[in-house]
Structure formats: structure tokens, C-alpha cells
């Protein structure tokens, strides 16, 4: 049995000014074929004007089990948000 074509993650930019957004994945032998497969699979209705394809194996993802420690430091630093500071109502434009 032949080996399966590698998996590519597909990102579409809907229009200039917006970031590329992950939409799904395709199998393809190489990058060019992945772009063409992504075009046929994910942009049949003018969903985008630009495509990125990235070998799925190249993506390094954080582990959801570590989410606690990884993101916890942000939780106790509420002073990073403007609402942490109380300013009297009569002070304007701040």
C-alpha cells in the first residue's frame, strides 16, 4: 500500500486587512498541490483572496493539560486592565 499524502493545515485570508484564519486541513503530496486542494475545498464561494498551507506536522501546540500553569500568570494581574483603576467620574477623556 502506498503511503498516505501528508496532512496540511489550511489558513484563509477573507480579505486584505484581516488575518489568515484556520479553516481545516487537506492531504497533498506537496505545497503547491496543497494550495490547489485548499482552493477547491475551502474557497468555492469567494471565502478568501489568499491561502496559507502549513505541514500539520510542523505545528507545535500547547498542551491543554498545561493550560492552568501556562495561562494562570495572566489571571492575577488584573492591573493590566484599565478597569483596575478607579478614576472619579468628573475626570474626563481618560
Amino acid at each position, binding site marked *: 500500500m*502506498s503511503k*498516505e499524502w501528508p496532512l496540511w493545515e489550511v489558513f484563509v485570508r477573507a480579505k486584505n486587512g484581516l488575518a489568515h484564519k484556520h*479553516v*481545516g486541513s487537506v*492531504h497533498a503530496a*506537496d505545497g503547491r498541490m496543497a494550495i490547489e486542494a485548499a482552493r477547491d475545498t*475551502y474557497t*468555492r464561494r469567494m471565502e478568501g483572496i489568499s491561502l496559507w498551507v502549513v505541514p500539520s506536522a510542523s505545528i507545535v501546540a500547547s498542551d*491543554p493539560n498545561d493550560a492552568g500553569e501556562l495561562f494562570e500568570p495572566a489571571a492575577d494581574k488584573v492591573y493590566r486592565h484599565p478597569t483596575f483603576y478607579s478614576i472619579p467620574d468628573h475626570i474626563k477623556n481618560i
Partner: protein
Amino acid sequence: MYTTELDDNKKKPATVPSAPEDPVRLAAFEARVAADDFIEPKDWMPEAYRKTLIRQISQHAHSEIVGMLPEGNWITRAPSLRRKAVLLAKVQDEGGHGLYLYAAAETLGTSRDEMIEALHSGRAKYSTIFNYPTLTWADIGAIGWLVDGAAIMNQVPLQRTSYGPYARAMVRICKEESFHQRQGYEIMMTLAAGTAEQKRMAQSALDRWWWPSLMMFGPPDDNSPNSAQSMRWRIKRETNDQIRQKFIDVTVPQAEAIDLQVPDPALKWNETRGSYDFGEIDWEEFYAVVRGEGPLAKERMNARVKAWEEGAWVREAAMAHADKRRVRAAAE
């Protein structure tokens, strides 16, 4: 298009986890799902949840892919260039839907090749509806109107299914499916307003597709062993009978509007329930078709296997070419 969970053995109990799950993790998982949180690929999940999803999503994907066959037959015989272009676009959409779903299933740790092998060897099921023949052009209208209509009914609640990649695939699919149903109804509408012979074609297609469409929602709730678990895990959001009733309630007036008769003498508006009462569904036929005794089961699988085997050299050549270019690029 669509599938519901299919099991040829209706007595089989819901999937049993191979090893007992860690009760603390299981409780945390159940709480998340109950709170309508989405589960994502790398999150911990019970084995039975993973297996149920792989089975359901891959069956759904297979249904989309096999669903291309009965309609593909009619592309060259579509009655006008407009109808031909529309049918081509619809069949291409079905292929796309299959691919979104295969990709979603792959995030659960199965591979594309494994799923395709399961389909071709007959271990994996696909929607029974595609084992019925498409005898005339009117069948293409009936499929779009009824089969895709039933699919939409089933898929809309699945946009909130608890597994993130499946839910996201369903959002895309639902957006695209609505054109499928409307083009089908338009075909029926045109035929029903045509010559006496054209109207007979439309009526005959409705006669043949009505009951199989109602069976698409799966066995009745009291005979659907996997339903309770799937509802609790928010893999399913509404029961088979609930969705079936909804489908009947919206579809009957659409048939009446174009003066076609729904082939069910027991069909009657029930004022108290605010719904239509309908006749008995022949579940023996359903299970026979699930077991692969549908009129075209063999032909469908032969077509799939032939396409897969005859395309093997293309897949191999593309991979060999890509490998060669990689080696060459590395040497430069």
C-alpha cells in the same frame, strides 16, 4: 449530505469503554460537556466518546462521498446547461463536505486511509439513502428537496455538537446545503408545473423518495441504543423522532404548494399536537438496506473501490515526484 448513527445490529449496546476511565477526569469532562463547552482535539476525552465520534463523523463523511455517485450519474444527462452547471457544483460540494468531515475525524487520531479502508471493506456504514436508484431526472429534484432537506434538519443542531472540529465542519456544511435543497425543489416545481408526463415524473419521484427520506433520521427513539449516551455527551442534540417530525411538518406544505401528493394515506394534520400524524415506517426495509441489501449497495461500493484502485498510480506518482523534488532541493 447526511447520516445518522447507523448500526446494523440494533440490539448492540452503546459503546463500552475498553478500560474503566479515570473517574475524576470523566466527571470533569461530563461537567464541561453539560455546560455546553466545546471539546477540542488535544483535550482529554473518554475512549467511548472518541470512538463514537470517529464512527459517526466517518459515516457522515462516507455518506457525502457515496452521495456523489447517484447524482454524478445525471451530470451528462441534465436537461439544460444551467441544470448541468448547478448539478456539477452540488456534486463538488458533496465532495467538499466529505473532505471537511474526514479532516475532522482525523483530529481524533484515525487516518484517511483507515477510514477509506473501513468503507471499502464494508465495516463502515454510510447513509442507506444512497442505495436507492435514481431512475429519472425528477429523482435529482427529489434528492435535493427531500434528502438534502432531511440532511439540513439533522445537521442544523449538529452545529452545536460538543466536538469542536465536527461542529465547525457542520457550520460550513449547513451554509452550503441550503442551495442544494432549493435547487432540488426548483426542479420539482418546474416538473410539477410542466406537461402531464413531467408532473407524473415528479410525483413518482416523490413516491419513491418519501419513505427512504423519513428513514434517514434513523431508528425510532425507543429503538436507538446509542442515542441516550450521544445526547448526554451532546454529540447529538435532538432525537431521531423529534427531527423526523420537524421534517414532515415543514415538507408536507411544500408538496401541497406544488400540488404533489405525499404517499402516506395516514398523513393528517393533528390540531392538538400542532404537527402531522403519519403512517408506520417499514423498519425492516431500513435494516435490510443498512445490512447492505439495498438495490444498489454493491454497485456503489464497486464504483468507490474502482475509483480508489484506479487512482492509486496517481497518488503514488505525485508522492514520488514530491519526494524527488525535495531531495533535489536539499542537494542544491
